[in-house]
């Protein structure tokens, strides 16, 4: 069953084709659109499950659209890093479910927009899946554009005037970064004559064109850094992620920014295999930028009153952890960083879903307005607390293991300073967690709506609870993704020649 070869194109094309059909199925009534999107994501998830089963049993495999062998055609490549489509499918499916009630409630969204909202969400998820499974540099760019364009539009969909400005800021920076990526893909094509990643990696070493290769490396890193919202180029993120509708915030914050990281991982695969450039300088830069992001993101998060803005800043901080893990470039730290890509997606989705449920029920989004909500929405409050504990990295939860590994990596790399930065960042986040728990549980409500609030409807509550449970389960079963990623990291760290 799982060896059927066409699962791989199916997993990419189902959401994309589903998006193209969404306006058609919702011609008669727009209420079909959410169910249609949910069905498409279900099919996609089944296909993703098959693929992950296959990669677990057989190791990485390829699919050749049109039957053209590498490097003449486009190659779809499924390896251990591509297994992150499991998280994309999970959060995507839950976000669609969560949107059922949430979009109907958003006053500013004209009801006619709703089918297009689901179409864009499907396009975004399909673009991400394509980005993760493609083995071709230009194809990577095309999928990057699909997911970015739909992302910009999804930020603007809520229709508040700030939303459109935030979307425009996001679009401008995103478009520049995409262009930078395209430019460097052009350079790599110019010096190797190929676009297939594995082929580029094997040819790059022999070209001897060190200067163009270095420029391409630098520009690709900058381009993906913008997508991942690392420190100097993070300015688009807080507005965009806090203003988007909550399910979209979860998708953007949990998944879309991670694709910048996955892009960097692919880049590392190419450059480390070819050995054309010593990556030491780049790694040092990345570690420092990561460290600054951790501190700065956490610092700004502490001072926010708006709960979604706080979560958005905490995303910057967590991207810092992941990038620092990559930059330290030891076995432990890369494993920790890549597993944090998975775990942070789940944790951040929990937090945004729970925050969205509170906003849905009360209409308030600041901590000072939401005081005392712990007694009126107990389950949602518990979910948000579990998410907060995980994001700080307190032992039994999902966040702990990754941070532990990254810290181990820092000591392994003989750079204990960064281990302390990590701990300091975690402490800062702990402060914000204390503030939140204090506001929710130990302060008297100031708003009548908060007192009257009840638990969110089932289509919003159960996704939140499921993700919160996953935060705990991943802490206990964290060894499974760890064991899964380890061979891939080993392969990454072993250059082709040596």
């Amino acid at each position: 069953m799982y060896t059927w070869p066409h699962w791989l194109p199916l997993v990419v094309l189902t959401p994309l084709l589903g998006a193209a059909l969404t306006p058609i199925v919702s011609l008669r009534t727009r209420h079909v659109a959410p169910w249609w999107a949910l069905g498409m994501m279900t099919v996609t998830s089944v296909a993703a499950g098959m693929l992950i089963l296959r990669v677990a049993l057989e190791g990485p495999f390829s699919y050749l659209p049109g039957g053209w062998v590498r490097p003449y055609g486009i190659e779809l490549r499924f390896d251990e890093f591509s297994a992150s489509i499991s998280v994309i499918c999970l959060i995507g499916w839950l976000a669609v479910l969560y949107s059922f009630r949430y979009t109907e409630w958003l006053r500013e969204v004209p009801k006619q927009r709703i089918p297009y909202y689901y179409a864009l969400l499907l396009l975004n998820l399909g673009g991400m899946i394509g980005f993760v499974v493609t083995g071709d540099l230009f194809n990577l760019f095309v999928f990057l554009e699909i997911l970015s364009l739909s992302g910009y539009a999804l930020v603007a969909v809520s229709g508040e005037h700030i939303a459109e400005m935030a979307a425009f800021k996001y679009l401008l920076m995103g478009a520049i970064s995409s262009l930078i990526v395209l430019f460097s893909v052009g350079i790599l094509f110019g010096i190797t004559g190929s676009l297939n990643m594995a082929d580029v990696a094997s040819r790059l070493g022999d070209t001897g064109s060190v200067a163009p290769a270095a420029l391409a490396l630098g520009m690709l890193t900058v381009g993906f850094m913008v997508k991942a919202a690392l420190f100097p180029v993070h300015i688009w993120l807080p507005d965009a992620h806090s203003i988007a509708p909550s399910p979209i915030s979860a998708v953007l914050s949990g998944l879309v920014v991670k694709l910048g990281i996955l892009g960097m991982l692919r880049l590392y695969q190419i450059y480390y295999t070819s050995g054309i450039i010593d990556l030491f300088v780049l790694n040092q830069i990345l570690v420092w930028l990561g460290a600054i992001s951790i501190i700065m993101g956490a610092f700004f998060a502490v001072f926010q009153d708006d709960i979604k803005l706080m979560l958005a800043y905490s995303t910057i901080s967590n991207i810092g952890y992941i990038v620092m893990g990559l930059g330290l470039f030891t076995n432990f730290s890369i494993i920790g960083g890549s597993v944090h890509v998975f775990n942070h997606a789940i944790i951040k989705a929990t937090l945004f879903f729970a925050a969205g449920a509170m906003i849905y029920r009360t209409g308030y989004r600041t901590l000072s307005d939401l005081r005392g909500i712990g007694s009126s929405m107990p389950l949602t409050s518990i979910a948000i607390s579990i998410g907060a504990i995980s994001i700080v990295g307190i032992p039994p939860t999902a966040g702990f293991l990754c941070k532990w590994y990254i810290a181990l990596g820092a000591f392994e790399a003989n750079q204990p300073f960064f281990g302390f930065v990590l701990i300091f960042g975690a402490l800062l986040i702990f402060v914000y967690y204390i503030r939140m728990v204090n506001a929710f549980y130990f302060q008297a409500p100031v708003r009548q709506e908060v007192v009257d609030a009840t638990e969110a409807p089932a289509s919003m509550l159960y996704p939140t609870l499921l993700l919160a449970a996953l935060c705990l389960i991943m802490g206990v079963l964290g060894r499974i993704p760890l064991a899964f990623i380890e061979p891939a990291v080993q392969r990454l760290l072993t250059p082709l020649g040596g």
Partner: protein
Amino acid sequence: MKKALVAALLIIISIPMLIAVAAMPPHGDADSPVHTHVSARYIEHGEEEAGAENLVTGVLLNYRGLDTAGEVIVIFTALMAAFAVLITHPGRGEESGPTTAALDPEPGTEPESDSKAPPPISPVVSFMVRLLTPFTTLFAIYVILNGHVTPGGGFQGGAILGGMFIALTIVLGEDKVRTLLPRRAAPWMQGAAVFAFVAIGVIGAATTGYFLGYPTDASLHLVRELMMVVIEIGIGLGGAAIFATIFLQMEAE
């Protein structure tokens, strides 16, 4: 001051870029990797392998078909995005409930918003556009259908058709042109490119075992050509419909 600073920054940025491009393989050199690796095979065998005299079409539809599929999805995304951003009131004929878009602060107070009443179209322009329409259409169809032999293809033809559509809208008014894109058929037209790609891709998967695979047998080269033409027509129709709709949507805002 700010401008001078930015200019200085950009000059600093451009120096490493210039150093790098100076070290690129010489421009126009037939022995550079670009010409000796993948494209060498395309140029040598592309015509019989991909089934198109115009190698660019061969690369677009056959060797790198998935890129082109992605490309049509990108432009479809732009359409969905334009809808999601621009729709503020119930569209024509759709559920005519109470309008929810009472957001605009005071649209009437802006000095420039009196552009609502466009100046009348010059009769010469109007006549020329109407006169040229059949020829433009014919040219667009030629470009679409001959994409695999001569320069051009679905996308170029679609852009020409879309441009003609836009010119007609300006001259004839929106309502007359809307009849060309009825509400029920519009989503089918807009998605035509995606549907054509998926349909041909699935046929390819069923017959050759690869998604977007084309029959390679020499006796089947007409079938292969037909499959390409179907995709080109899909891209042409879809592109034209999408351009026209985006334009109408922006005008209607």
